[in-house]
């Protein structure tokens, strides 16, 4: 039996690979950014879409990856590869640490606790401006942005590197959600008490999922620093916790490819709006309200539901 879900997602990757040669320069750069941010959104989706943890503090994990890579690179002269790894570890560790505390709560309290932790981290970045350069941010010079001999400041290299990271994240996510552990994550989302009475410890399951979510977020943050050469406090603010939620809701929470789709749509929607008005974030607000009212399952979620049994096969 052919693995239709794998096929559909490999198809998406093939299209993105072909786009490397087809896209004009502006869109080539834009899609590279979308790919990196989609990894962040996929991380958010693991926590929210699959496991049901509504976090408002994911910017903390993203920023941990961002600064975890940018600071060693600029302050301590680490190489690109080690800095990337450091960012990844920072995001993961931060998620595990926050999870140990925040997962003692649930629902609305969990949301507020994660928001508070992220806010504290954001303020810390401002407070330690001597090293983090606060609002102004760290600009990483081109010579530092090398990983394993590849120059990530180069547009073409950057696109392919972003696609590689995205492909790894996408396939890992696909594998995860179809594995037994993915089933347990969904069980936590659907009915925690029932899952507990099947012998699963909700705390450890959710902690594992949140840590994994942190790994994705940290990887995206670290990659962002190296590829786009910038780490600033605005990327740690509450808006960067809300954006991945929006992307996931738009593309379809609990679908593997949804976060990418949502991120892509939203990126171009804001891009388009900025030509019309300075109040570009109005788009974010309207999109959020419209989504919860009219399309709570998002694009791919709605599609999957329409397709019924076929939908569950093609779009896990």
């Amino acid at each position: 039996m052919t693995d239709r879900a794998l096929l559909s997602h490999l198809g998406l990757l093939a299209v993105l690979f072909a786009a490397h040669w087809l896209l004009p320069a502006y869109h080539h750069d834009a899609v590279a950014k979308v790919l990196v941010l989609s990894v962040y959104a996929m991380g958010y989706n693991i926590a929210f879409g699959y496991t049901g943890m509504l976090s408002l503090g994911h910017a903390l994990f993203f920023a941990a990856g961002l600064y975890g890579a940018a600071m060693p690179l600029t302050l301590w002269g680490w190489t690109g590869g080690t800095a990337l790894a450091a960012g990844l570890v920072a995001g993961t560790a931060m998620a595990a640490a926050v999870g140990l505390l925040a997962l003692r709560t649930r629902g609305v309290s969990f949301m507020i606790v994660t928001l508070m932790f992220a806010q504290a981290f954001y303020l810390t970045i401002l407070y330690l401006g001597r090293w983090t350069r606060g609002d102004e941010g760290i600009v990483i010079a081109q010579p530092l942005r090398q990983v394993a001999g590849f120059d990530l400041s180069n547009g073409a290299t950057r696109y392919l590197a972003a696609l590689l990271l995205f492909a790894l994240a996408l396939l890992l996510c696909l594998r995860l959600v179809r594995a037994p552990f993915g089933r347990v994550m969904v069980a936590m989302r659907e009915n925690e008490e029932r899952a507990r009475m099947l012998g699963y410890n909700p705390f450890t399951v959710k902690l594992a999922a949140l840590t994994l979510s942190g790994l994705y977020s940290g990887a995206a943050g670290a990659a962002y620093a190296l590829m786009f050469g910038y780490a600033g406090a605005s990327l740690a603010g509450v808006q960067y916790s809300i954006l991945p939620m929006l992307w996931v809701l738009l593309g379809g929470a609990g679908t593997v490819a949804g976060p990418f789709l949502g991120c892509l749509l939203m990126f171009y929607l804001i891009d388009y709006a900025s030509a019309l008005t300075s109040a570009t974030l109005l788009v974010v607000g309207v999109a959020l309200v419209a989504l919860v009212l009219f399309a709570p399952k998002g694009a791919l979620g709605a599609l999957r539901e329409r397709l019924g049994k076929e939908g569950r096969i093609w779009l896990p």
Partner: protein
Amino acid sequence: MDFGPLLLLAILEGTVTAAVLALTAVGLSLTFGIMRVVNVAHGEFFMLGAVLAWFVSQWFPDAPLLAFLLAMVICPLVVAGVAVLADVLILKRLNYEPEATIVATIGLLYIFQQAALSFFGPNARPVAPPFNFRVQLPWFGYSGYKLFVILAAGVLLLLVWLLIARTKIGLVMRATQIDRTTARAFGINVDRVYAMTFGIGAGLAAIAAVLVVPIQQAHYLMGGDPLLLSFIVVILGGLGTLRGTLIAALLIGLLDGLLSTAFFFPPTFAKIMATLLVALVLVFRPEGLFGRRTA
């Protein structure tokens, strides 16, 4: 200044902060307590009140007292109206499902904020105080308007308390808070109670903002701090308990006054500590510092 006068000044400033914060936070506490709605857009109701107060002040540039009195009536009413619309058109249709409501109010936050940016512009604008006199204390003169703010907030909070504890409307609200299904079975129109509660909560934030604009300028991004501080106050006070909310507002306000006036403590550091403290309170004492522990 010597320590004594400095301390007095810090307490005065802190009480002004506490008074405004208490009004704002009580609004948030009402919506959470009665509707179980976490209103992330609450700070924007505050901001809308402030921005509207500026518009009102422009109608009567030479009569700040008249403009102030008018704003005290118009702003909370308009903002409450906006809130009631938001409740009926959005929140009610979501069945007040917690996660959807949070996402929707985040959306509202951006909509209100960006609307203000479009109509009001990106600059901060001052509003003239309704009167200018200084009360001469032994060591320094102090703004009479700020003292008035404390008094006005106190009176308004007393009115809120009377409404909730002593009137039939309050009884209906409390019954709905405890058990909305049973409330319905006794003829209470829960939808109307919810719309009214959301309106009152938003109106309180707006009225706090009208009081504050002569001290602090109106700006389209000014909703963030009151939201965060109200959250802190409501959580520390125990979610949905009015008395706890008041105590916590006083505590946070005074602390803020002391930290920013009397001691040379970096305010960012104080904010970090306060934020972490609140997160830990929620983790280890979810019923708040002054809330009742329920079985």
